[in-house]
């Protein structure tokens, strides 16, 4: 057994299952017939392999298990969010009854204790679902710790809190291999970098949301981070960084392509909106091209989604008022079919990737 991560282990299991199905098909077609000794040896090897992988990585051994896993993922996410909310409201309900020293002690114990409990649970929880619950509670306790200390002692709000939250979220994400915490960390980091970009221009940091361009610098940071940090051990982390970077680019551009007044550019509003529409199309096309070249499906898909969104936004601007609605939606549908045909052709022309 040589899998280093759950994803690799699951790929190995899928490989074994695919081999079994193909072997059965070849046998049925009379193409290949293994001796009973060979079949027994292969079956014995695969049985041991699957048992080892299931024990070490909690993989799905068949389709039924895979469907149950999908349900468990949803349940663990909802459970994690609900438990985190419960912790927050529990503290809010009772904190006024304690004196300041007890309040601070409770916050510290909750932050440290939940973090240690998460790490301990991770060592015992092969599935990762309970670790996800515990990690989100630990993150919530830390956020609660900083927010409540700020409220108790009337500390002036600062964007540095976002950096601290991002740091702990990343530590939990990489320690426990949890994409949910990675997303939480990325959101906090995005908020911090954008707010700091604003304060450098003398603006109050909480004003950052009114100026979408503050989010553009962090887009480059998020997108390129997987290029200089190896993420092979972490399933889906590199794709999460790249998609986050693209969202930090496309969403502000989409907003500014419809709301020129929100830009720092002092041009006429229509000119600003036109400029950002061009930027949107160009960057979406560039993302598709880059994704195809590097084999990054996440980048291709995100680029396609936003290219279509920008296109539909333009269609709406041009035709919604002047065209009968049935014709408008017919054109939208035809464009979608065209995009489908282009992507299908790309897929057919791409050389097969080696395993």
């Amino acid at each position, binding site marked *: 057994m040589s899998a280093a991560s759950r994803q690799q282990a699951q790929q190995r299991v899928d490989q074994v299952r695919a081999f079994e199905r193909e072997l059965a098909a070849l046998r049925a077609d009379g193409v290949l017939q293994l001796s009973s000794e060979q079949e027994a040896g292969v079956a014995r090897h695969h049985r041991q392999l699957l048992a080892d992988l299931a024990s070490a990585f909690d993989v799905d051994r068949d389709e039924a298990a895979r469907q149950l896993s999908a349900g468990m993922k949803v349940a663990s996410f909802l459970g994690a969010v609900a438990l985190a909310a419960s912790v927050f409201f529990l503290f809010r*309900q009772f*904190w006024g009854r304690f004196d300041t020293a007890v309040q*601070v002690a409770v916050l510290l114990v909750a932050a440290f204790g939940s973090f*240690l409990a998460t*790490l301990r649970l991770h060592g015992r929880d092969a599935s990762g679902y309970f670790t996800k619950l515990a990690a989100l509670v630990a993150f919530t306790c830390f956020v609660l710790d900083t927010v409540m200390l700020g409220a108790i*002692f009337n*500390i002036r709000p600062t964007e540095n809190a976002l950096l601290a939250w991002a*740091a702990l979220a990343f*530590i939990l994400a*990489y320690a426990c291999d949890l994409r949910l915490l990675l997303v939480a960390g990325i959101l906090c980091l995005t908020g911090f970098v954008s707010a700091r970009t604003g304060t450098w221009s003398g603006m109050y940091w909480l004003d950052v949301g009114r100026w979408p361009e503050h989010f553009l610098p962090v887009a480059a940071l998020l997108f390129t981070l997987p290029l200089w940090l190896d993420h092979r051990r972490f399933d889906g982390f590199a794709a999460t960084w790249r998609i986050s970077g693209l969202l930090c680019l496309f969403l502000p551009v989409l907003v500014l392509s419809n709301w020129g007044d929100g830009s720092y550019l002092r041009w006429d509003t229509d000119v600003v909106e036109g400029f950002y529409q061009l930027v949107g199309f160009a960057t979406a096309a560039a993302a598709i091209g880059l994704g195809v070249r590097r084999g990054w499906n996440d980048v291709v898909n995100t680029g396609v989604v936003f290219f279509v969104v920008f296109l539909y936004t333009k269609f709406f601007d041009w035709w919604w008022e002047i065209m009968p609605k049935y014709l408008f939606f017919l054109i939208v549908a035809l464009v979608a079919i065209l995009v489908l045909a282009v992507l299908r052709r790309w897929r057919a022309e791409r050389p097969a990737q080696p395993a």
Partner: protein
Amino acid sequence: MRAPTHRRFGWLGLGVIAMVNALALGGVAWNRSLVDSRLPLSERELQAPYEYGDEAEDSGVALDLVWRVAPSADGADDVGAAPGWLGYDYARTPAWLGVAKLAALGYATTPPPEGTTRAPRPRDRPAWLVLELDGPAYQRHLALMARRVVAARAKLEAAPNGSAEKDRLKDAIDRLADARTKDSRLFVVDLGRDRDALRATYRDRSRYAIVEGIVSTTWTRDAQGPWRLEGSIDRLRIPRLHVPRDEARALGSAAHRQHYDQAVPPFRAVVAFGRRAEPWLESVGPR
């Protein structure tokens, strides 16, 4: 390799939690190591926020600092204005917040070129605000309210049967009474970027507190006239004070507010402002 990496993350996480809490609590200790100003406030300047919806589940108690600015113009001839607006500038645009002060805060004050239809968007900037308690600004406000009663009385004498004139006089009298007994005596009287320079000008530390606030601007004009820059004091950076448990008990029903007309028992509270201008409640008691 898993166990050592796991242990490293563990120490890193504990280090982050410890460092953040140490910085926060250390900052509090440093802030409170020196009192920059100490204001004796009352239920007029400290009000519990309204509790509605799930706010009632929050067992913590806090008080909002209620502050005002002097009207943007002398309203003595403003008797014709609708009741409810007399003498209180809800827009928070004091007359002394002119272009020079906004320029000192870093705002670009050059008007947009002729023919511009789209003015620059307003931006919030932090600034140091001078809060004055029961000082000249409050006295001028009382004098303005008294002048309005006199003016309303004169108008009623000129039109004794006018119901609008009677309403305005009643409202002016009520407003004067509120100004004397209920409304906040805390006024923002100045602002700037240099806290030390402001403190050198406003030395009385039992009357003037220098706190952080947020200033906003907007470009405006009349019809096709020239653009002009208007500033307003948007909010305090720390508008709310936490009330520790024992002090909350001393406040009694003043700690909870469910509706506007709720009678609040009078109390006296001493609020201190520290090195970082972060406030805290030193004492609370009946007045």
